[in-house]
């Protein structure tokens, strides 16, 4: 009896929850209304069956509850009824399946005029590549991957030279232009998902998969990885900007081609040394750092990281509210007026002899090891050397006190929350592996042993 009422209430509650729920499909931003249409058919067919079956069951439970003198009716089967129900179900299934297959046929055959672009996934970043004027992407392979050629583009393939490479997790697409994404992975499985486009597909190392869509609504959308790809899976994010063709063309023209990235002259260490003179006051002539001035050690750090941080200070991505010492840095970074100047000084710093910094932090090394080994080593490597591949700077032999301040900044939301700080955002999430200041110090103490 109670159960019959509860079943009835549950059906009603489910319907109420559905209509009251603010959680529903995001607004469609691509020309996949057919997918939403198929979902709606399935939703209403299954919704009807859900309500009908459960209300009928609730009725039975109430109506045929045990009563004095009542006896169940003996009826082994009713072939006609069962046959009728089978036919009814089959019709419902066909009603849901047929449009689904029709739409799937659209999905597997991209239109002739779809513009191609490439999505490259690797632990745990997105990168993108657009064909140049020839409209063709050059061949690529993991064997060619290096710090200067993160896409692994075949240097001997003329088609690849004019490919536009976007070594940032932010991509742009023109509105009302069907696009076919070619999906490639350098390491494990990933999955390219933009919820508002409705479609998704795995990136599989060793092969090229694809999906296509026609972006219709201007805006910025999140790209998420939706295939478990290791410990950084949940921080593998990017974004896609859908804009008018003109804006898109302008953006694309501003991105370097593969040939340009390869033709870059070697950084000028002499010029870098000259630029570095300004830095010596705080960071020291040998880049050894100065804790009194809150200037971290730079020597030994990788050039790509120094370069990126200088750019961040220039763009205001770092050194925002609450970051007192970072704000000091902004002024100095702005002295480096050109990209070349930044490259030169970064290269000079990377060339300085690396002496491990003095130890200032003590902590529980074994707890630090535990946390580091479980959560940090995946990017910063077992020996704390860091690598461009995972966008992870060197930690071993650097200032432990600086490590503590920066992790505290990540945890406090002072660093990493700027919308353009895609890599810092990852650290904001990963830094939660250290519960409190004490654990941060434990990890620092462990990193101190890696030298």
């Amino acid at each position: 009896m109670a159960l019959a009422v509860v079943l009835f209430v549950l059906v009603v509650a489910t319907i109420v929850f559905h209509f009251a729920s603010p959680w529903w499909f995001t607004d469609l931003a691509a020309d996949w209304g057919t997918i939403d249409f198929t979902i709606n058919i399935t939703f209403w067919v299954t919704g009807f069956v859900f309500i009908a079956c459960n209300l009928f069951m609730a009725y039975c439970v109430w109506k045929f509850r045990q009563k004095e003198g009542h006896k169940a009716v003996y009826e082994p089967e009713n072939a006609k009824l069962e046959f009728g129900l089978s036919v009814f179900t089959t019709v419902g299934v066909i009603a849901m399946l047929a449009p689904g297959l029709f739409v799937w046929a659209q999905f597997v055959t991209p239109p002739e005029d779809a513009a191609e672009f490439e999505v490259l996934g690797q632990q745990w970043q997105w990168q993108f590549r657009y064909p140049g004027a020839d409209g063709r992407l050059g061949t690529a392979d993991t064997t060619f991957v290096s710090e200067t050629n993160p896409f692994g583009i075949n240097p001997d393939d003329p088609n690849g030279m004019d490919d536009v490479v976007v070594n940032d997790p932010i991509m742009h697409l023109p509105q009302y232009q069907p696009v076919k994404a070619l999906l490639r992975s350098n390491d494990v499985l990933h999955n390219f998902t933009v919820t508002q486009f409705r479609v998704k597909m795995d990136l599989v190392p060793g092969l090229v998969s694809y999906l296509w869509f026609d972006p219709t609504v201007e805006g910025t959308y999140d790209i998420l990885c939706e295939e478990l790809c290791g410990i950084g899976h949940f921080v593998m994010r990017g974004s896609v900007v859908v804009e008018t063709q003109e804006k898109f063309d302008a953006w694309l023209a501003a991105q370097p081609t593969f040939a340009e990235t390869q033709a870059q002259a070697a950084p000028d260490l002499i010029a870098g040394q000259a630029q570095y003179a300004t830095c010596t006051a705080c960071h020291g002539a040998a880049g050894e750092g100065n804790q009194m001035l809150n200037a971290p050690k730079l020597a030994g750090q990788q050039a790509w990281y120094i370069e990126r941080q200088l750019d961040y200070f220039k763009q205001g991505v770092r050194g925002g509210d609450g970051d007192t010492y970072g704000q000091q840095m902004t002024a100095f970074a702005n002295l480096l007026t050109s990209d070349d100047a930044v490259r030169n000084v970064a290269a000079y710093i990377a060339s300085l002899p690396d002496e491990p910094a003095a130890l200032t932090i003590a902590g529980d090394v074994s707890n630090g090891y535990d946390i580091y080994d479980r959560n940090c080593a995946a990017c910063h490597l077992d020996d704390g050397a860091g690598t461009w591949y995972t966008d992870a700077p060197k930690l071993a032999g650097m200032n432990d006190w600086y490590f503590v301040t920066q992790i505290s900044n990540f945890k406090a939301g002072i660093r990493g929350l700027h919308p353009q700080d895609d890599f810092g955002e990852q650290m904001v999430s990963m830094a939660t592996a250290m519960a409190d200041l004490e654990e941060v110090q434990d990890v620092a103490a462990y990193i101190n042993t890696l030298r």
Partner: protein
Amino acid sequence: MAYVPLADRDHEMEMHHPHTWIGKYVWSQDHKVIAIQYGSIAIFTGLVGLVLSLLFRLQLGFPESVSFVDPNFYYQAITMHGMIMVVYFLTALFLGGFGNYLVPLMCGARDMVFPFMNMLSVWVFLVSVIILMASFFVGGGPTGAGWTLYPPQTAMAGTPGHDLGIVLMLVSLAVFIVAFTMGGLNYVVTILQYRCRGLTMMRLPLSIWGIFVATVLGLFAFPALLVAAIMMLFDTLLGTSFFMPAVLESGTALDHNGGSPILFQHLFWFFGHPEVYIVALPAFGLVSDVLSVHARKNIFGYRMMVWAIIAIGGLSFIVWAHHMYVSGMNPYFGFFFATTTLIIAVPTALKVYNWVLTLWEGDIRMNVPMYFAIGFIFTFIHGGLTGLFLGNVVIDLPLSDTYFVIAHFHMVMGVSPILVLFAAIYHWYPKMTGRMFHEGMAKLHFWLTFLGAYAIYLPMHYLGFLGVPRRYYALGTTEFIPASAQDLNATITIAALIVGISQLLFFINIIWSLRYGKKADPNPWGAASLEWQTPDTPPAHGNWGDQLPTVYRWAYDYSVPGAHQDFIPQNTPESEEPTVSDEHFDPDTEKSLANL
């Protein structure tokens, strides 16, 4: 023909009754003891899985304030939770536990056909669990590659437990498969060859049909997992490249080349999809019997139910790639697998209709098992219908890898089978222990579990509609996920905690009742099937005393017009009770009788 001397029975077996405590309860070859051993190990392992789920639910619900779950542990916890629940808990409990307990009893046999192998099965199963649990204590911890163990990441540095954890997991699975094969051969051969006199296949209770077809599925599907595990072990330990393509690990090329990660997925899901039915079919069978007994009505459309079980079992081998619509495999496969997948909906829907129609014009006794059985129908309808979303290939595009998938499969192969497990445990508890459980506590347990589970999984579907991705340690900041989604996640966690903790009621009840429960009647529910007709309660070693039973009718003679009571046990001769139809057995069978 009524009495057959023992010596003439070609499948009368010799029983060795052990006399020591260890012989009776540890190295026992009695299927009932083995069933309880299997069940206890499975439930213990399931508890580990439950605790893991609560830990990572805490992280998901309250990411800011839960500090003891770091990303590494989160991925290990979801992986181990998934594998434990699917393989070591549900499969082992349904087939190792209920299969072992019910098969010989419902078939009117003294024991399994190979009791020694049956005993080996449970001990090898224990070894596999120990190996699995050992991975919590090795360097690097258990694998965190997701329960699907997709290469290449299983063996790569960015994945928790990529060195020892994954090896122990694969070895444990291989050992489990050995255990399952030993047990499974027993169930299948016992059901085929050791049924008592007169017990035709079509007279078997649906429980046995469910267990039978599920076991056959397991015997043919687990080899795919074994093959995948062996090849992955070779890749991990010996440097082969079956599944490992050329990949970079932290920017350096690994010494692998050319392997196919998708081949692994095909093998995994060729096992993985039948696995769903390995769990579901015994649940279908058990719940059919519970419904029929407590509605005092035969299961409606018995033949259709048997055919549906067989059809679902057969079809389950040709739908596996519906787990791989967005895996990067040839997308044209989608047409075939979407069609086969939605065809399965028809026999499955028929089963649901027949369960509900069994209630129609019944005389429903609202006993505790019936609550769980009806709760099962409700959650199964919900879970089955959401399966139509995911099976329809194009709808899978937005929903795949979101919370919708989590909600769907927990509804259909988590909550639903577990409700059946509780129904079955409460239903057979009096027979297994000779005591009644505490009814009030059991009802409270039902309400908390049933309503709580629905409160967990109904909202989760809506997070999936929204597009919230699964396997995310924290949602972080996105444009499209509103803060209210996190609140909903917190609510789900609270519901999960309540459901998790309320399981204590179940454990307290079954342990307390062992000692203090009311003495139970041999047949408290008035059930017609054979296991309730044993001379002893709980059944003694050998089950049937001096003489095996003889079966004269099917297992569902309830409320037969003109009968003395509202059920007729299967071993009641037709001369003692009226028959509804005047059509008697056909001449062919008469002949085969004469041949003996």
